[in-house]
């Protein structure tokens, strides 16, 4: 089955991850701009990060037959850093114009501070100005209240809720997110957030409309194969192939397709792989035989 992991931070992952993801059926991914675990001290560090999201990481993914897109935004944590926040906001209009940027994100609340609110609102306005969908992170702490505040802020922004995906939902937040008209993402994560079995139960309870899943894999304890693993759990729970496909492919394609920039090729399949595009010591291919496959 073709799968789309619409939230994964590949900059922190290895080529082995890319290979395993491709083997498991992942054909397209979105890498939201996020926080790197360690605070950045210069606006320029953000710019180089955005450049890697629209350049090098995209190239790396393609070598494993995976379409790579990104969302661009200032993450909630670093909106609280006055050394960088406003400088990064000034850069966003350039990077929101990039061809492979399919949304604003991930933005939202972390500690739910006034600065977070101010720049969350400002970035919702950028989404309206650039006619882009939005990927919203919801907080780990005080999650339910933070999600409700998020929904209120979305409503006040005037953006159409169908162009907003609220991510990292759980049993406590899903009903409110769906009621708001927004899309509901679920990050399947070891130990926290959501697991495969609970996710299958949610699909059985709520159906598939506006529901998506992702791995949110990053530099922490996380698993880039959580989307295929959840597909297995959904199958074992007796969910139909059609419903599974809706959750792991059709829904993310429909949501991010609203950007008008989700170019998956003519047949929406795997991009052609040509690892011979790599070379010598700089290559991600170090001495193995290159794989050359035509597009499916």
């Amino acid at each position, binding site marked *: 089955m073709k799968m789309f992991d619409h939230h994964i931070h590949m900059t922190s992952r290895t080529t082995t991850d890319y290979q395993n993801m491709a083997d498991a059926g992942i054909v397209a991914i979105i890498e939201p701009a996020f926080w790197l675990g360690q605070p950045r001290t210069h606006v320029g560090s953000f710019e180089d990060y955005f450049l890697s999201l*629209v*350049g*090098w990481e995209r190239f790396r993914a393609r070598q494993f037959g995976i379409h790579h897109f990104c969302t661009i935004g200032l993450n909630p944590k670093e909106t609280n850093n006055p050394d960088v926040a406003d400088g990064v906001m000034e850069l966003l*209009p*350039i*990077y929101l*114009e990039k*061809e492979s940027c399919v949304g604003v994100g991930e933005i939202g609340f972390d500690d739910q501070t006034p600065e977070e609110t101010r720049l969350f609102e400002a970035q919702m306005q950028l989404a309206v100005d650039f006619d882009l969908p939005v990927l919203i992170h919801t907080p780990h702490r005080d999650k339910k209240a933070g999600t409700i505040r998020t929904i209120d802020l979305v409503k006040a922004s005037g953006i159409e809720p169908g162009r907003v995906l609220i991510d990292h939902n759980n049993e406590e937040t899903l009903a409110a997110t769906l009621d708001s008209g927004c899309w509901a993402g679920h990050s399947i994560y070891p130990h926290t957030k959501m697991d495969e079995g609970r996710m299958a139960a949610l699909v059985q309870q709520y159906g598939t409309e506006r529901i998506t899943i992702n791995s949110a894999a990053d530099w922490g304890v996380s698993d880039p194969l959580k989307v295929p693993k959840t597909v297995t759990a959904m199958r074992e729970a007796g969910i139909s192939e059609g419903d599974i496909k809706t959750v792991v492919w059709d829904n993310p394609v429909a949501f991010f397709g609203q950007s008008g920039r989700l170019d998956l090729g003519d047949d929406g399949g795997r991009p052609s792989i040509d690892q011979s*595009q790599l*070379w010598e010591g700089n290559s991600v291919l170090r001495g193995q035989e290159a794989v050359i496959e035509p597009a499916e």
Partner: protein
Amino acid sequence: MSNPFADIVWARIDGPAKSWLDRAWPSAEEAQTSVRFRASFAGVTRRLRGVEVTGDDIASLTDAGVIGAADWRIDRVARVALLSQVLVAVSFEEHAAFVRQVYLRGDYKEQAAVLASLSFLPGPERYLDLAIDACRTNVLDVFEGIACDNAYPAAHFPEANFNQMVLKAIFMEVSVGRVAGLAQRATAELSRMATDFGDERRAAGRSVPDDVALIVGLDAA
């Protein structure tokens, strides 16, 4: 002053694409900020999506000196047009710094477009450092932007840099047949480098790309 790239773009667009370009088009009098220009330069692909270049346009591009014009799409033509236009209001001394920023902050299609434009900008010899640096890229699209169907390297590169670029093309399995001016720039030194590379591959039990023989043959011819 008429510019063949701009003429093609303006002739092909209407509707929202035209109103966008009306707003984005750099004034000849007042220099656009680098930030504003970089946003327009990035937005070209999606803002002009669906606009096609015609057979006549390909002929005009070829007349203007474009090599491999049949492969040019509207985004490439428009980016060369925009870059030429924005420089009109930038002081001549600052051209290289301006173009370098656009290049460094571009995605790989933007970078390839900057590289393709270098021969068509005023005082192209000033972009030598940028062009040589571009050969260090790891991204195929960018490397092809400088090495393939581009008159710039043969016209401006010192011998050592030209030879390195050709050798890297073989490593990347980019056909050296697409390196413009290769026959004119072929030297005994390039032939020696290609021969050594072939020997190294044979010693490692690996196949030798056909382009090695092609380069060695150029020197003999």
